[in-house]
């Protein structure tokens, strides 16, 4: 198993191999995303029971929670890619990190937006300085920072390393920020209830949530592979195999 992972790692480091193998993965990710998201949506919207307190607006959870989850895990993935780039100098790691950033930012935005919409029936206001939403907002700024830094720096290798370092520094700080925001929230606004804080969810509620989460991950794979493949072509334009591929049509 370990050996297999090691060879996979080394192969993924080669742009050519990455391009070819991800080409064959694409339909699988696409299929999984469509199936999981389809099943999850229908189940969550039509079959899962409504919440006894919030009623049917609770169904927004099926977008909000997976989006918030992905927003955080994509940032961690970016930091891991950053470590791989800085320590093992694997250039493909940067292609992946660059492709992750826009998807992560979208997920963060989505979590914020669905949180705001959810807030209207629940709190009676579009925005509330709820601990989870505030952390999400800060995470959104962190994503914007990484994207802006890449735009600002030249040449590309320098931008790659700088973004990797920023993502690593960010990942060390995220728990601190989260903890401090939670603390601040309990200090200032105790006893309002949090959107997704549930005592115990019945299986008919959390199974579709899990399916949606899997669907989001498949979507992540699909979207990131699409972006990474275009980036590989751009960066490896001079390589023989890219020219061959382009001539083949």
């Amino acid at each position: 198993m370990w050996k297999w992972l090691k060879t996979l790692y080394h192969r993924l480091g080669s742009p050519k191999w990455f391009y070819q193998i991800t080409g064959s993965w694409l339909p699988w990710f696409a299929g999984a995303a469509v199936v999981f998201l389809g099943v999850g949506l229908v189940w969550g919207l039509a079959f899962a029971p409504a919440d006894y307190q919030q009623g049917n607006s609770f169904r927004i959870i099926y977008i909000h929670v997976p989006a918030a989850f992905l927003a955080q895990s994509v940032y961690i993935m970016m930091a891991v890619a950053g470590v791989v780039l800085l320590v093992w100098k694997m250039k493909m790691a940067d292609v992946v990190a660059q492709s992750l950033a826009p998807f992560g930012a979208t997920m963060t935005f989505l979590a914020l937006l669905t949180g705001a919409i959810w807030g209207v029936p629940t709190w009676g206001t579009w925005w509330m300085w709820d601990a989870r939403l505030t952390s999400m907002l800060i995470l959104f700024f962190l994503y914007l920072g990484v994207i802006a830094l890449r735009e600002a720096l030249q040449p590309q290798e320098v931008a790659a390393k700088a973004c990797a370092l920023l993502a690593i520094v960010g990942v060390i700080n995220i728990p601190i920020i989260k903890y401090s925001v939670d603390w601040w929230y309990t200090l200032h606004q105790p006893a309002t209830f949090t959107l997704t804080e549930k005592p115990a969810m019945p299986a008919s509620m959390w199974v579709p949530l899990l399916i949606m989460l899997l669907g989001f991950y498949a979507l992540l794979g699909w979207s990131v592979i699409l972006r990474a493949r275009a980036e590989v072509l751009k960066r490896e334009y001079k390589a023989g195999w890219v020219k061959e591929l382009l001539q083949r049509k």
Partner: protein
Amino acid sequence: MNKPAAAFCRLKQKPANLPGLFAVFKAALGREWRMQVRRRGDLVNPLVFFALVVVLFPLGISPTEDILAPVAPGVLWVAALLATLMSLDALFRPDLLDGSLEQQLVTGYPLAPLALAKLGVHWLLSSLPLILLSPFLGIMLYLPWEAQGVMMLALLLGSLALSLVGAIGAALTAGVGKSGVLMTLLVLPFYIPVLIFGTGAMQAAISGGSAMAHLSLLGALAALAITLAPWAIAAGLKIAVSGE
């Protein structure tokens, strides 16, 4: 044999005698002190900015005590945050542009302590005056006396973390021509914990409670920043040099 007037000729050689890291650190402190003291404008501007932002608030909200006093901790901290950020923006860029940063990379000594020396002097010359200025601005915002001491102590601990974390952003953006906004975007999210615990300490003091919990958390943040940030700063500076 007569040499031309400007003839280069090596001086008498002494045996090689490499100084220890601490001696180099001390020399770096002295050099930074001289350099930064001579750039007075860069030191005064953030202080003026700090005072000005604080003065604008009563004009924008209300001059009455019952409105100003509750928001005073927040206003003071936000202004201090922005002033620190502003003072850090040009910390490393001149060094990158005149080549002294690449010289620091080839001294044969680790870069982190050299960057720390620079940052230490910068803290002494910009954050410390800011802390000393803060009680006067606190009085103007009707900050209760009990909170003044806590504010200075909180600023003392918090500004260490602010300087160190901000310097990471300054290192990353050293190669960017005009980086003011970019630097703000990169660094401000990381300032949030300091802001929360800093204002928390002051509010605890105002409400008559103990600010110890907040202060010790600020201290922990400062300690964490001192141990981790220098390495990130050094890595950021190396990246900046490789881009020139």
